């Protein structure tokens, strides 16, 4: 008996260590939501609780971090303005569809929560959104750019510019300037965003009659892309179309330039981040992306957003932060028009009626299904800076 007891205790000790370590993720999410409760409710403001599902631990935690920081900055400003008082309840999805559904259900079951923002990845969003639609709670993606997202249901929206809008614009301009005839493609084949982007790229390349020299793939967590890049180099393309998230994309750019691939890269939404320059340095020059958000723009709104964000979090905001920031403002705007922070249906109708909302991303409206209507800017990295693409 004693023996078993001992064995059991040891196993228990080992497992509790595991559980403790795993807890690190969810509690950190909890703490953050507590920390955001600081602003005190003022008399006349409409109180509203917004649930946030974000990718806060694991390989893509950088995206979730940018998104929640964008949200927190917007929250702080909105609460200071005093018309609406927003509380954020932030949950971690760890980039996994199952966990996103779990925390999503938790938020939906809480009647005090008005609406949801997130999850981060399109893969996760496809799992959570149908559930939200069924429960009659509004859900909006700020970084979900794959085709078919708003079509999930009446309660499903997004303010992320779909890849089918951003990528073709970028490819068209890049081909026009460089006169490219042959393109090579590389993409991450284990993520809905990069896969969706790849399909748009391939379709566009075929439409424009470009010759595709090779199609290469990679998976999350790899750090050596040299084999794929050597193959691309030897196929001598005029342009490389890369559907990558910036973390992998920046490393791919760096390795490609070191290998002697000097042609421009065209990327999707996920490739657009100042972090690319940070990680890849000079190798980042020659990256062309279509984006709703141009961080180095002279627009006073964006300049101020940059300043406030940097003061708050000590780094430059990227597109993910900007889209999240705008998303919360769009929500606040709808809450004001609905006049309530509790009625989920009234909020949904007010949100759907959003038209020509003036955010840092530009003029923003929803179309009939809840998808984005706005203009796309094409930018490129030149001398270590994002500049507007010149033809």
């Amino acid at each position, binding site marked *: 008996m*004693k*023996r*078993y007891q*001992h*064995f059991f205790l*040891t*196993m228990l000790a*080992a*497992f509790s*260590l*595991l559980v403790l*370590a*795993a807890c*690190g*993720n969810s509690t950190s999410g909890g703490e953050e939501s507590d920390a955001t409760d600081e602003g005190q409710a003022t008399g006349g403001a409409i109180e509203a609780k917004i649930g946030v599902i974000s990718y806060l*631990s*694991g*390989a*893509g*935690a*950088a995206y979730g*971090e940018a998104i929640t920081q964008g949200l927190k900055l917007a929250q702080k400003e909105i609460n200071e303005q005093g018309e609406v008082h927003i509380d954020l309840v932030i949950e971690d999805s760890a980039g996994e569809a199952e966990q996103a559904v779990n925390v999503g259900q938790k938020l939906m079951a809480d009647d005090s929560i008005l609406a949801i923002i997130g999850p981060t990845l399109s893969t996760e969003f496809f799992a959570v959104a149908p559930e939200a639609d069924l429960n009659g709670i509004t859900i909006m993606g700020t970084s979900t750019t794959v085709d078919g997202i708003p079509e999930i249901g009446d309660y499903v929206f997004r303010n992320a510019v779909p890849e089918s809008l951003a990528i073709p614009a970028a490819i068209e301009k890049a081909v026009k300037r460089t006169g490219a005839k042959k393109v090579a493609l590389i993409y991450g*084949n284990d993520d809905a965003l990069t896969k969706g982007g790849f399909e748009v790229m391939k379709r566009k390349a075929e439409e424009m009659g470009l010759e595709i020299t090779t199609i*290469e*793939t*990679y*998976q999350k*967590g*790899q*750090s*050596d*892309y*040299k*084999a*794929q890049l*050597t*193959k691309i180099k*030897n196929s001598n393309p005029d342009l490389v179309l890369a559907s990558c998230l910036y*973390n*992998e994309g*920046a*490393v791919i750019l*760096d*390795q490609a330039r*070191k*290998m*002697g691939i000097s042609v421009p890269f065209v990327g999707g939404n996920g490739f657009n981040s100042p*972090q690319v320059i*940070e*990680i*890849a*340095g000079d190798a980042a020059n020659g990256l062309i992306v279509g984006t709703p958000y141009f961080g180095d723009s002279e627009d006073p709104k964006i300049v101020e957003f940059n300043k406030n964000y940097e003061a708050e979090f000590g780094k430059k905001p990227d597109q993910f932060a900007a889209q999240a920031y705008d998303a919360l403002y769009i929500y606040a705007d709808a809450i004001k028009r609905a006049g309530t922070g509790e009625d989920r249906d009234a909020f949904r109708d007010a949100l759907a009626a959003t038209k020509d909302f003036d955010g840092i991303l530009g003029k923003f409206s929803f179309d009939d299904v809840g998808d984005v209507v706005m203009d796309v800017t094409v930018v490129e990295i030149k001398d270590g800076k994002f500049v507007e693409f010149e033809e």
Partner: protein
Amino acid sequence: MLIEQLINGVTLGSIYAIVALGFTLVFGVLGIINMAHGEIFMVGAFIGVLTTSVLGWPLWLAFLASIVVTAILGYFLEVFSLRPLRGKKGVSHLAPLISTIGVSIFLENLSHHLFGAGNKPFRAEFAEIRFEIGSVTIYLVQITIFVISVILMIGLSIWLSKTKAGKALRATAENIETASILGVDTKKIITLTVMIASGMGGIAGILVGMAFNSVSPQMGLSMGLKGLAIIILGGMGSVKGAVVGGLILGLSETFLVAYGDSGYRDAIAFIMIILILLIRPQGIFGSKAAEGR
């Protein structure tokens, strides 16, 4: 293209080999799969980034710092998560495996908090030195990685077979009780082994940082799994097997991408494990005697 891909494959394979050496050393002596090895490797890479990019230290000092830090981590690993479970009655032989998994999760989350998510660049002038022969570009780093992996293999083999400490280590591996009766300080030997293995993980970390210019808190996991695959392929506890297995895996991954479909790259390691377990369960260089443990 063939030569370029060959160089890519050998570079990758050499890194795999150094990671696998750390695995095989711990397994050889303790009979434990150290699941935290990948994360110790990751910490080594971060120390490299920290010392060269942030503090601006020269490369040799970065190597030294990385080895020292990872060896200390190895010491803590042994003292806190392996020693308490060793030699106690009723402790399952799987318990140390689980506790090293715990350590690996702890280290990953710790570096996530300390260094933030996402890739960190590794800037070292040394990583820019290259030679061009015809259309083929070779980086000095690539040669260095290969040379270091060979030196480590030879050094480790000599150390194990010729020196007194090496002999004590092998005696401990053979039978821990008999070795301690014969006057071997087994506690010291085991601690030393785990520290050396971790230090080698640190070396591999810096080399990966330089070669691929990408360091992130998650890099340890996939490298750890590959290292595990390699020691099964090469033979558990075999030094030669770790190096040969690493090179085989690196080359086959690279050539699969070059002449096949890049989507299957990560699958190849595990297809190889299945094949080797069916055909030669003890691994390429494994000895049947090891099964008795």
